[in-house]
């Protein structure tokens, strides 16, 4: 049995969205019944277009948002029962934009040692030394301890965010688009750093990204999300070598590799992303699907086990969903 750190069961998050001044509020299922296990030491990537619920899911995993339904357990204990402070010591976030995630009025040193202060670390005399060691570990020169974020480059800021996240030695780090605000040459430095830290500190990552080339590079397992559901989840090799869900295929097609002999791909996704307040019936992907069948608009697909993981699509259902339509 694998060592599961975070286990989510049927997690749902519903927001009530105002539909107009005199109309009632409508439910928006940002995350719609997701079941997910994060195993110790793995890098689980959540991918999908904006609005698919990746960030909402991450916020729930961090304990920043309560679930509307379903449960999240951390090493077997429901997150709701874990004290806020204790949870912060176990799971830490790294955000996308290092320009807005660091307080401009605090020095680098006080940003990095803040978690120690919050956790009431018993040994304040060692804080500076520990922060400086952490700075060294993430590749920041110690002399920056007294500097302020505006004196640092984007890559350095992201290193500060990483040092801050890691100073209390969390078990899980949730990275929300950790490199998408960075330049190409800096992006590769941060990705390499995250990889090194993972083996050095025995970390587990949940990485949220829309950059599939990055995901393929760092993830060990990938969950593809569409409108609040995981439509395909597999280990990285199976997913990238043999994508099965038509949406995953379209996503992979739209990755632009720097190969001048290939033109711009035609993903044939056609229609734009649907309004999540009025999701399409049946399989929510059916209006954009190139292999849509009659019953796709009627019945929602079930989870189907496939080599390397699972997929939610009628194409791989032996009954092709017909039985369920009839019943």
């Amino acid at each position, binding site marked *: 049995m694998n060592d599961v750190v975070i286990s989510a069961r049927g997690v749902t998050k519903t927001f009530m969205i105002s539909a107009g001044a005199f109309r009632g509020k409508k439910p928006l299922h940002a995350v719609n019944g997701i079941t997910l296990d994060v195993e110790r030491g793995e890098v689980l990537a959540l991918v999908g277009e904006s609005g698919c619920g990746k960030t909402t899911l991450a916020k729930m995993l961090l304990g920043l948002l309560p679930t509307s339904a379903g449960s999240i357990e951390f090493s077997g204990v429901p997150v709701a029962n874990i004290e806020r402070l204790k949870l912060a010591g176990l799971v830490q976030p790294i955000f996308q934009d290092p320009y807005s995630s660091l307080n401009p009025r605090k020095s680098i040193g006080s940003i990095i040692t803040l978690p120690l202060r919050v956790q009431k670390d018993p040994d304040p005399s060692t804080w500076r030394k520990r922060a400086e060691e952490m700075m060294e570990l993430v590749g920041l020169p110690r002399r920056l301890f007294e500097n302020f974020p505006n004196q640092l480059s984007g890559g350095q800021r992201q290193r500060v965010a990483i040092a801050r996240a890691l100073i209390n030695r969390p078990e899980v780090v949730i990275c929300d688009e950790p490199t998408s605000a960075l330049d*190409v040459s800096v992006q590769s430095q941060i990705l390499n750093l995250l990889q*090194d830290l993972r083996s050095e500190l025995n970390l587990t990552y949940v990485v949220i990204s829309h950059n599939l080339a990055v995901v393929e590079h760092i993830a060990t397992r990938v969950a593809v999300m569409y409108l609040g559901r995981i439509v395909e989840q597999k280990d990285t090799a199976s997913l990238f070598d043999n994508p099965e869900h038509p949406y995953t295929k379209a996503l992979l097609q739209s990755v632009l*590799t720097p190969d*001048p002999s290939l033109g*711009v791909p035609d993903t044939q996704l056609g229609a734009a992303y649907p309004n999540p307040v009025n999701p399409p019936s049946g399989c929510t992907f059916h209006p954009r699907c190139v292999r849509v069948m009659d019953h796709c608009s009627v019945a929602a697909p079930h989870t189907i086990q496939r080599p390397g993981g699972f997929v939610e699509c009628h194409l791989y259902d032996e009954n092709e969903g017909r039985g369920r339509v009839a019943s």
Partner: protein
Amino acid sequence: MSKRILEVENLTVDIPVGGGILHAVQGISFHVDQGETLCIVGESGCGKSLTSLAVMDLLPKKAKRGADVLKLSDEDLLAAGERRMCDIRGNTMGMIFQEPMTSLNPAYTIGNQLEEALKRHRKVSTREARDRAIYLLEKVGITAAESRLGQYPHQLSGGLRQRVMIAMTLMCGPNLIIADEPTTALDVTIQAQILLLLAELQREFEMGLILITHDLGVVARIADRVAVMYAGQIVEEGTAEQVFNRPTHPYTQGLLECIPIPGKTDRGKPLGSIPGIVPSLIGKFNACHFAERCLFATGDCTRGNIDMRQASEQGHAYRCILDADTCRSNALEKGVA
């Protein structure tokens, strides 16, 4: 030979800042022919956006532009006054910016803004402008175009807004489109659609296109020619095929090593990286700009400015003291072939 649409020679942009003068763009030369796509690629701060703003004469007030030649078709833009530039911008030279939400006016309908673009430059009736708007909205793949005219930008998704921006740029039938990071704010699937659309429209209307981006994947797929910029200079220039398949400048080679390429880079293996950071461009710089970060730098690199030189093939040039063969064998050693 196809017609030359834009010719730029020795373009400079200087910005006075607290500590001296920031030489943001230092002598850039390029040209765009009819029906050609030129991609300017580089990291933030390399001067690629300022280059495009300088061509359109939209630089911030305190910035100073200089150039030997700046010609749009047969017109000398250096001699054009503000009034003439206003006639040119949006008419023969169109622009598409990164964030479609901030470049569309939230207080006016789509139709209003599209029609205005044409009415500003041509003597046309509202009826004609409206027909043209509908025609172009359909061209950029927007369904129910007529009903969209009454909508406001906030009612459209990011991809649709960018399509509207493209339609607006096409209203006057420009010869040249300058697109600054047109797909950066969009999802990957939408990005592919928008790029495909741009490429198709460009072919159909035979426009010149300058695409400014930091995304090497985008560049490789859409460019005819590529100019790689680093710290205010073009460091390598050539056809997409030359630059991507035979990168010669150490910076271009480094960039290509930095990105994970599905099927080529081993999953989980460390990526290549370029050590160090971009040099400050304040004050005079009398050396190779990349020398500090270059793996192959020698003492000669810091003795004076480096000129562009011809690589082994016609049309492929780079800015390095090493000869092309040495650069190439360096590249092969690093595995970027």
